[in-house]
């Protein structure tokens, strides 16, 4: 299975769900397996970090991966130790991880308990937020809530406004009559047990329906009229209105609880009030209190609801709510919000009316857009806006494009001058008559007609569309598409030309002409006998019949063909290097009877037998033609690389395969460098072309003194592994080295041009550093010796402080320089006074003399 996918599924996704919190358990995070193995840990960490890098390409993982990387830095020391073989710190961490997980879970349980409070209820969003904050997946948060016996549920949506507009009056009357609530008014003593109001009204022994209301009406009708009956009338009017009585009851209860909540009653107090004073069944009471507490975010009431509506853009609803049920003693904030809502609605309504009166649809559109920006739910505005058509496009043009893939009609039009809103364009096509609207015809996508009907008048129309309204169509046409014959191929043979094509089915026929004369042809081809060695030009056109049955001929497709006799092959060929240019070859052959000879290069033996005849195009696909110059008896070429040089004779469209020659590219080796290093000469060069080996020859001594030449064949592998060649050469003799490329061609060995290098003789002069003299005047003597007498042009004694050996005279300070020093011999200086470690070393500036250092211990002074 794909590691990336698995890692995403098992680690990244859960971590993302937990609010981009990486898993605390490093075993999970780094896919570690126990027992911990240093090598396996290192490999897993590397692989996981690569997964991170790849996952980071997806935006949703970016924050998480950045966090993982940041934490990885903190952990780097632990992993570095593991990689070195010490997994103890990592094991320690892994143990710590479990404890941290446990602590986190504890924290979630505590926070859930706090949030649930006396009601033991929380919303799903709260569980998720708590889990996320603590870094625990949401599922686990829910599981922990279940363990704590906390209900996770959405708060019930309570009615924001009264179902009956005059509810405030009803309420007043209930208060005057001393009734706890509507059911108390309706049922009085009969209401014995707790009641449920949330999912419809239910209470033991009573039913809330029209009959119950009518019974109450009848009961009150029997009473003598007084102020009480007036109040009862008010209440009964509410119950008999078209508002559902059970909704009215629920609103009544909810309003009473809201009022308490506004007075900052605690949850516990609200619950007691609901159950004991209002007589609500405990389950409903909990749900009610839960909903009310969540509704206002812990207070605020009307103001909060107004604000929520305004924030959601539902200004109209806010204004209605304010008009419908805002008490006179509503808090200041609510009054301010209500005024704001009303003001915005007024302004928006004005804009809407202005828009309705506006004749220019674009201006009207913008007015409505402004109105909707003020009041998102302004009735009618959005519908009106959707029905405002944009201006039509200024003009449409249709171009017929003929390509290899077929014929396309492309439409060009300027955008509609209407700039307001999101204007889109519909393009349709119809045969025979102009389209009358956006839906009249075949719809086209992207302003292109990829498959236009052939040989029929076509009309195209573009309509600009905004919302549900469309402009008048702008039409272009008629366009008639008459494709040319497709895939036209004309081939020449020996004295014959054949043609082939595909004619569109709609075409009535084809017309072929050669140099102005008609050539008989069928619907899909022709074949004609013509003279060789001349180029013939053909025009192949399709013929269509128009609506009146007249012939219409297309401009046609042009093709040329030059038939010719078949080429004769080259039977034999010889190749020799050009003495003037090492990269060039002279290729000689007898000129064939017919056709032009060219030389081609293949990298494998040519697959065709000699004299084979094949189409030139086929040959060109496989082999490279070599540029060549005419030369006596043949051609001169620079093949550039090894392979088979083959002669092919080309005539007409055919090539005759001729003889070939195996060519090996053996240029002289480039950049030959020969350096003397002690008893060896180091030889380096650029490996020449395709040479299998090189031949190295070297001769010690001056040229002409008759010493033997040593030869060596060196393979490329040997050369590469040793990084050059080491030739043993006496130090005091000059040497001449030549290198040449060697290759095999057929059975023979070929040697390319040689390059030579010369290394002068060297005299090795050994030296010793001898310290002497009395303690107050120490001296240093350089004692020089050699196999034979010599003289050093310039000798320099250098001192370098520190522990690093000087490699060049410039690496240190010069103690003394002597010119023209005889060998054997010695020179003396005062011993330099330097504190701390230092090196001494001599350097000779002389073409033929090389200094041999004494043992390092006499050069290095470690104080």
């Amino acid at each position, binding site marked *: 299975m794909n590691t990336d996918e698995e890692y995403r599924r098992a680690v990244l996704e859960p971590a993302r769900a937990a609010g981009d919190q990486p898993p605390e358990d490093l075993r999970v995070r780094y896919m570690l397996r126990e027992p911990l193995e240093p090598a396996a840990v290192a490999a897993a960490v590397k692989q996981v970090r690569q997964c991170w890098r790849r996952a980071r390409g997806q935006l949703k993982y970016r924050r998480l991966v950045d966090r993982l990387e940041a934490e990885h830095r903190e952990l780097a020391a632990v992993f570095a130790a593991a990689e070195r073989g010490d997994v103890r710190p990592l094991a320690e961490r892994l143990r710590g991880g479990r404890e941290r997980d446990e602590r986190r879970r504890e924290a979630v349980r505590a926070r859930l308990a706090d949030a649930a409070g006396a009601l033991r209820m929380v919303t799903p969003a709260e569980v998720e937020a708590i889990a996320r904050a603590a870094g625990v997946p949401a599922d686990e948060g829910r599981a922990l809530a279940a363990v704590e016996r906390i209900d996770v549920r959405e708060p019930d949506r309570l009615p924001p406004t009264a179902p009956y507009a005059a509810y405030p009056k009803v309420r007043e009357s209930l208060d005057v009559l001393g009734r706890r609530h509507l059911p108390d008014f309706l049922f009085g003593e009969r209401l014995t047990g707790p009641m449920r109001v949330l999912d419809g009204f239910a209470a033991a022994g009573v039913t809330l329906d029209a009959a119950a209301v009518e019974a109450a009406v009848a009961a009150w009708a029997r009473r003598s009229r007084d102020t009480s009956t007036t109040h009862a009338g008010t209440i009964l009017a509410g119950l008999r209105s078209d508002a559902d009585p059970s909704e009215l009851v629920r609103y009544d209860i909810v309003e009473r609880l809201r009022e308490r909540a506004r007075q900052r009653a605690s949850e516990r107090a609200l619950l007691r009030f609901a159950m004991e004073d209002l007589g609500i069944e405990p389950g409903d009471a909990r749900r009610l209190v839960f909903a009310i507490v969540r509704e206002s975010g812990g207070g605020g009431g009307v103001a909060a609801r107004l604000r929520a509506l305004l924030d959601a853009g539902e200004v109209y609803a806010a204004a209605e709510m304010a008009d419908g049920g805002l008490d006179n003693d509503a808090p200041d904030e609510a009054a301010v919000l209500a005024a704001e809502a009303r003001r915005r609605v007024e302004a928006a309504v004005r804009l809407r009316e202005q828009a309705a009166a506006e004749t220019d649809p674009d201006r009207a559109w913008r007015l409505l857009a402004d109105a909707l920006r003020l009041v998102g739910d302004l009735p009618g505005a959005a519908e009106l806006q959707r029905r405002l058509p944009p201006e039509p496009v200024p003009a449409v043009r249709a171009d017929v494009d003929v390509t290899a893939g077929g014929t396309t009609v492309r439409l060009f039009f300027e955008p509609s001058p209407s700039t307001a809103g*999101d204007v889109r364009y519909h393009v349709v096509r119809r045969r025979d008559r102009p389209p009358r609207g956006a839906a009249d015809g075949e719809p086209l996508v992207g302003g292109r007609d990829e498959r236009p009907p052939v040989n029929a008048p076509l009309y195209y129309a573009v309509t600009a569309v905004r919302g549900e309204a469309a402009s008048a169509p702008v039409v272009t046409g008629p366009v008639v598409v008459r494709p040319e014959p497709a895939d036209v191929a004309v081939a020449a043979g020996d004295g014959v030309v054949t043609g082939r094509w595909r004619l569109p089915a709609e075409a009535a026929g084809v017309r072929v002409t050669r140099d102005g004369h008609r050539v008989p042809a069928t619907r899909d081809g022709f074949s004609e006998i013509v003279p060789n060695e001349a180029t013939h030009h053909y025009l192949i056109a399709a013929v269509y019949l128009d609506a009146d049955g007249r012939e219409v001929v297309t401009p046609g497709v042009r093709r040329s063909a030059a038939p010719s006799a078949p080429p004769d092959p080259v039977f034999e060929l010889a190749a020799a290097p050009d003495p003037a240019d090492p990269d060039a070859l002279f290729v000689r052959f007898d000129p064939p009877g017919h056709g032009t000879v060219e030389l081609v290069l293949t990298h494998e033996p040519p697959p065709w037998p000699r004299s084979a005849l094949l189409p030139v195009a086929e040959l060109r696909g496989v082999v490279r033609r070599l540029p060549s110059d005419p030369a006596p008896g043949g051609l001169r070429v620079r093949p550039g690389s090894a392979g088979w040089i083959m002669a092919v004779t080309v005539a007409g469209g055919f090539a005759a395969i001729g003889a070939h020659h195996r060519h090996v590219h053996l240029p002289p080796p480039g950049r030959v460098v020969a350096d003397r290093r002690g008893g060896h000469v180091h030889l380096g060069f650029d490996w020449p072309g395709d040479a299998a080996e090189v031949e190295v020859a070297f001769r010690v001594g001056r040229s002409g003194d008759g010493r033997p030449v040593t030869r060596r064949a060196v393979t490329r592998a040997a050369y590469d592994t040793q990084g050059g060649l080491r030739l043993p050469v006496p130090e005091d003799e000059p040497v001449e080295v030549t290198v040449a490329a060697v290759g095999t061609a057929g059975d023979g060995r070929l040697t390319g041009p040689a390059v030579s290098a010369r290394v002068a003789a060297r005299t090795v002069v050994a030296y010793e550093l001898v310290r002497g003299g009395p303690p107050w005047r120490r001296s240093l003597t350089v004692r020089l010796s050699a196999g034979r007498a010599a003289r050093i042009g310039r000798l320099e004694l250098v001192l370098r402080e520190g*522990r*690093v050996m000087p490699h060049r005279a410039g690496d240190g300070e010069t103690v003394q320089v002597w010119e023209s020093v005889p060998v054997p011999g010695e020179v003396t200086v005062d011993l330099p006074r330097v504190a701390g470690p230092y090196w001494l070393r001599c350097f000779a500036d002389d073409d033929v003399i090389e200094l041999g250092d004494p043992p390092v211990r006499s050069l290095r002074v470690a104080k």
Partner: protein
Amino acid sequence: MAVYGIDLGTTYSCIASIDDVGRPAVLRNLEGTDTTPSVVYFESGDNVVVGATAKDTAVLDPGNVVSLIKRDMGRDVTRRIHGIDFKPEELSAFILLKLATDARTSAGEEARDVVITVPAYFGAAERDATHKAGRIAGLNVIDIVSEPIAAAITYGVLNPDADRTILVYDLGGGTFDTTVIALRGGHIEVVCTDGDHELGGADWDARIVEFLAERFLAEHPGASDPLDDPQTEQQLRRDAEDAKKSLTTRTVHTVRVMHDGRVAAVELTREKLEDLTRDLLDRTIEITGRTLATAAEKGVHDYDDLVLVGGSTKMPVVAARLETELGLRARLQDPDLAVAKGAALYAFEETYRRLVREGAAERAEEMANRAGLSAEQQRQIAGRTIRTVASHAFGIVVVDRETGEESVAHLVHANDELPAARSEDFFTVFDDQDSADVRVMEQAGSVESPDLLDNNEIAAGDIRIPAGKRAGWPIEVTFQLDASGLLNVAAVEKEKGERLDLKIDVGGMSEEEVERSRTALSRVQVS
């Protein structure tokens, strides 16, 4: 034979060469555009499509499309596609191949000898990876050159005979660079450079995408997160880039976010875009400030021009902000193409200089004549020097003998002049030790730190020790950063001063792997 300059960008790439009258000209691709999206689509394991088509396909088949490859260069991260693991070098090679193949079609001759540009802030490993990408693509990489230098060359050619100090601010698709360059008497000298690898137009796009997704979810709270669906994410990236580009000339743009069968029309104003990305722009300003401070330490206080390079500098807020912060009027010179053109000029000039240096004067002359250069111009090119600096500090891992703790000893510091070489002595620890490890590290943060964690390993290798040496045998290792910022390492034993065998692999790929990839990729069809 012509030589080419390639701007291998994070989001768009471009190839140029010198035309018949000696001017740099961009070669269009087969689709007919100057720049090619740096996006690779694997239709199958052996058929690869690069460019606009690949970018379009990202929306339909995101799993088989790779983009922003440059951000992974020099890192050991592979992408598995159709069951094959591709290294960043190989993915980049596909882009290079596409550029070279299309250039061949439009120029009519093989494009083989190339100079490839990299951000100035690229370190040795990234440069090396780019070099290898070129070789995997079968190209002959003449040199790797920093993008601001290429831009400065274009700039210098357009404004000849003026000695100037310029600040190049390059905000492309994926990287940000600032570089101070002095042009004196035709010579080019980089004073200092700084930047951030992970800061570019793509990050602007990402901010817009997040915003669009957020607004979509606000409108359709019940729908799934658009960013959970890779196809939608790709679509949003395209929409975001379009919106961003359209907001350079307009002030509002509406994006229709479609996901989960739902639509939200999100309006994005230029102001909102600038708000969403303010911190990104702030980061570029901060880095620019840091660069100016470094330049001031090196005695550069006055600037003649601020040159803006990179497509993202077309956002109007960039020039405006730089003008208020730095008081410099920005010059926007061909920000998309200046780098490729400069690279072509550099490739041409460098080839010319190499021919002159190797003594092939007639070939050099012939090349110059073909481009119609006067004798004076030739003299100038032959004599032009380009001085560069190191973009990062680098050094080696050293072990404290007492405590065994590892730390990094820096040998070359950021903004040291290049080429820079430092030698360091090592001593064997055991008798008969047969090899010694070297680990070369590069500063990863914006300032140097000896802590291993604050450095990236850019090369590791081992030195072969001849048999029979006692503990304490001295070795001198020389680390060299050449003028193109590429790393070379050599070791010498100190008794005789002879070279020691050293096998070192810079970056993730060894030479053998490069060769293997080149052969493998030559079988893949790229279009």
